[in-house]
């Protein structure tokens, strides 16, 4: 990324994800200048300003106050505000990288897409797992047909709730979060399925506690048009295996759904696997935890600058993820409405 021209970036929402991932990623990129930190709690925004040394950044209490010369913004506010905040920025022609989930309703997603068209701005969504090196390698192998026909996918993401240092606890509020673990963690793996093997059709969805608006554990069973069956499990209560496994006719690929230093593969088509059966490719140095966010931000900045890039996580694709999540929630509502 060139050093001579800096993209002016606003961080809208100064919560845990901004502090832990977006701001370190932005600080690590020479071509980015953080020009505004937006949070209703100005003191919080100011504390991050000092922590990350963004001396020239303006402190704002509302997204409407970001400086007019802002070129791009990262929206990391509570889920239910993604739509309204992003729409306001996009209509002003500010390119938006919106945290996942894109929005809490399909209508909000559509409004965001049309606002992006109206403002001629780029809208990408923070499905950062697409930028994880091991996941990208898995995608390459699947596309190369190393596994033959993919027939099964299983994935899980789960760890106790306390491990995420949320400041506002908005994830406990169904009105702000849009649901529970399904819309929070679920969108990551649903997006991966969508990206790797195509759109899944929900066969079944289960969640606990039943009938509550914020589910703590959930399971999705799906089938894709290509005949791939799969099951995804999510939990905020307990540790799950946290693996994503793609099985095909000629082998499998497996990677960690949280931590990314390795990818395991077994395929008759790969010479390295012929002797050992399965090979685990391990990155010699553990990548810093911000690196997928950094790759994601680099990608976003390239989109902003109009470089000819294949947009990896466009709003349109992310909207499909929300459509699938909505179907899953409808399935849950239907089950709780109809007694067994």
């Amino acid at each position, binding site marked *: 990324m060139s050093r001579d021209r800096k993209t002016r970036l606003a961080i809208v929402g100064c919560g845990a994800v901004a502090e832990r991932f977006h701001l370190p990623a932005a600080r690590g990129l020479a071509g980015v200048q953080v020009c505004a930190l937006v949070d209703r709690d100005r003191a919080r925004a100011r504390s991050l300003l000092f922590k990350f040394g963004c001396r020239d950044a303006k402190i704002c209490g509302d997204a409407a106050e970001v400086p007019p010369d802002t070129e791009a913004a990262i929206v990391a506010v509570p889920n239910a505000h993604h739509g309204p905040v992003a729409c306001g920025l996009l209509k002003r022609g500010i390119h938006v990288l919106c945290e996942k989930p894109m929005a809490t309703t399909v209508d909000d997603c559509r409004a965001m897409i049309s606002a992006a068209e109206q403002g001629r701005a780029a809208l990408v969504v923070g499905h950062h797992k697409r930028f994880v090196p091991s996941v990208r390698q898995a995608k390459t192998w699947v596309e190369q047909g190393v596994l033959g026909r993919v027939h099964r996918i299983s994935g899980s993401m789960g760890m106790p709730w306390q491990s995420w240092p949320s400041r506002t606890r908005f994830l406990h509020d169904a009105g702000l979060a849009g649901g529970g673990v399904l819309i929070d963690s679920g969108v990551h793996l649903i997006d991966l399925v969508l990206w790797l093997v195509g759109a899944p059709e929900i066969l079944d969805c*289960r969640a606990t506690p039943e009938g509550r608006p914020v589910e703590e554990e959930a399971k999705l069973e799906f089938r894709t048009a290509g005949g791939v069956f799969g099951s995804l499990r999510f939990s905020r209560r307990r540790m799950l295996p946290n693996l994503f496994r793609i099985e095909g006719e000629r082998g499998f690929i*497996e990677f960690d759904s949280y931590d990314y230093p390795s990818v395991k593969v077994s395929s008759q088509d790969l010479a390295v696997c012929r002797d050992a059966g399965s090979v685990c490719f391990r990155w010699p140095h553990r990548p810093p935890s911000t690196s997928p966010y950094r790759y994601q931000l680099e990608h976003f900045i390239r989109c902003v600058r109009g470089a000819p890039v294949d947009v990896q996580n466009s709003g349109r694709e992310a909207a499909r993820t929300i459509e699938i999540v909505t179907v899953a929630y409808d399935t849950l509502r239907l089950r709780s409405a109809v007694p067994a």
Partner: protein
Amino acid sequence: MKTLVTGGTGFIGRHLVDRLAAAGTSVRCLVRPLSDTAAFLGRPEIELVHGDVGDRAAAAAALDRVDTVYHLAIDYSRQTADDLLPLLDACRERGIRRFVYFSSVAVAGTPPRGGAVSESTPCRPTTEYGRQKLLAEEALLDAHAREGFPVVIVRPTSVYGPGETNFWLPLFRAVHGRRLPARFGDGANLLSLCFIDNLLDGVALAAQSESAIGRIYILSDARPYSCREVIDAIARASQVPPPRRAIPNALAMPVARVLDYLWRFDVIEPVTPFLPGRVRQWMAHCPCGVDRAHRELGYRPAVDLAEGVRRTVDWYRGHGFLYRTLPWGGNAPDASAPAKSLRPRARALDFAGRSATLGWKLVALSWRVPRKIVRRVRRRLRWEPA
């Protein structure tokens, strides 16, 4: 009529379901709502019913048009066998043909000195798991004594085979990866293992035999194996030399405890077979006899240790549980290139890096240990006031 399997998503359950389905039996699995059912998706011959075994309505719904029940599920969070009762009541009401209960030799506890465990050994379970299984056995045998409930109880020994990823996998991994520098103890103690196919052969016989009703059968391989035999068999199947050194019996547990502490303080990577709980299990002398199953059911275990371990290692290799680790070069590996090992220089660098890391960890340990102790004391004072 259908066959109901509870606990069908576990290691033994999956094999049982596969075998029943392969034999043309119509199988229904009662699974918890959030169990991993990926293996059953897209298989119309297997019907999934969601619910908890301890839930009366779910148990009754699952028993619709069922004549045989294989009960493998266990709720580790409960301290009683209460979760069995709703299923048992529902089975009584429906009048099923056979109820096969998967217990464990853990109900017998430690065998008498020098002796072997048999079905008539007095039960003195030493673990919560064994106590829970014993309570369930008693409830079922009571139902049989009072009303002739058609129960057969099987007590598998330590089951291994393709798909087992809990108890035996760490030992296979350690031997396969040559991370087991020494055996624990002299390796002469006898362990009773049961290859999964042998177990299912025995279960099939128990489910069919009319004389088996109300009886208990230990199911195991044809003979117990010494711990040394097991490790050697794994090494042979993995094509690696077995560990030659042995830690004397008296030192094995203290060494395991020291290693455990070093692991807890991040000084070393965990070597799971050397965790104290595992070492205790592998050093236990626990031979079990299968005479009753042999005599009454005609049970003949077909797969011996060498063959069972070979099949297990092949499965672990094929499914990514035993794997070769290679450093990532930054580019996709060339599909036509042969596997390369690390060059000598890279190896030396790797060794230097590891040594430096270990040195740093030892330095860090000098301040981490007191901090941990202080934290533990504080926590205890806060939570357990005098």
